[in-house]
């Protein structure tokens, strides 16, 4: 996928709520406009990450199925 990524978060093997919790922690260290890629295999992350974006006002860019896990792209907009 043609998205410029600034930081990668490996949440493979983690379960709810850790992918979201680490995402919040990572986003705190990032600048507005930067993109975080989250790799996760927790099924809940599929709906949790877009829901998190809706609640926090950050932008959900895309998700990509990589077989055993998914990549989620989130842009820090707030």
């Amino acid at each position, binding site marked *: 996928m043609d998205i410029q990524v600034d930081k990668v978060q490996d949440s493979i093997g983690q379960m709810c*709520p850790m992918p979201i919790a680490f995402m919040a*922690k990572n986003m705190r260290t990032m600048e507005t406009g930067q993109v975080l890629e989250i790799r996760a295999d927790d099924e809940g992350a599929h709906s949790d990450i877009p829901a998190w974006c809706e609640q926090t006002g950050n932008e959900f860019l895309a998700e990509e199925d990589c077989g055993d896990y998914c990549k989620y792209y989130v842009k820090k907009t707030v």
Partner: protein
Amino acid sequence: MADNDNNNATIIVMSGDMDKVFAAFIIATGAAAAGMDTTMFFTFWGVKAIQKGNLTGKGLFGRMMGLMNRGGINVIGPSRFNFGGIGRWMFKKMMGDKGVASLEELRQMAIDLDVHLLGCGMSMDVMEISREDLIDEVEDIVGVGTMLNLAANSKVQLFI
């Protein structure tokens, strides 16, 4: 006055069972991760989740209570299927195998995400648990007035 335009969550943790404390910390970390100003108020059996785990109590009953209730967050058992500790071990193993964070890890994550931890003064008084018996991250020992004020100014109020 209650602030209706808030983004706060207040969770009252009354239970000291592994499963319920799990639920409380998962919701708290989720809320804090989503940018909510989150407070957890630990009362009665829930106080154990913020205790260091040392023996507590001053008088005979207090010390008996402390002995029965010794150990911190890592030794609390599930509300069902505990079978004298076997259930706790089994749940821990099953959760660990599946990559679920332990209660201690979840509590640390809540602390890292600035969840406010408050102890209930009355419960601690009754059970003879002192401030020194609680983990350092506990912000304050408060009463029902503070808890209600927080809850009234929260969008999410939960009693677990």
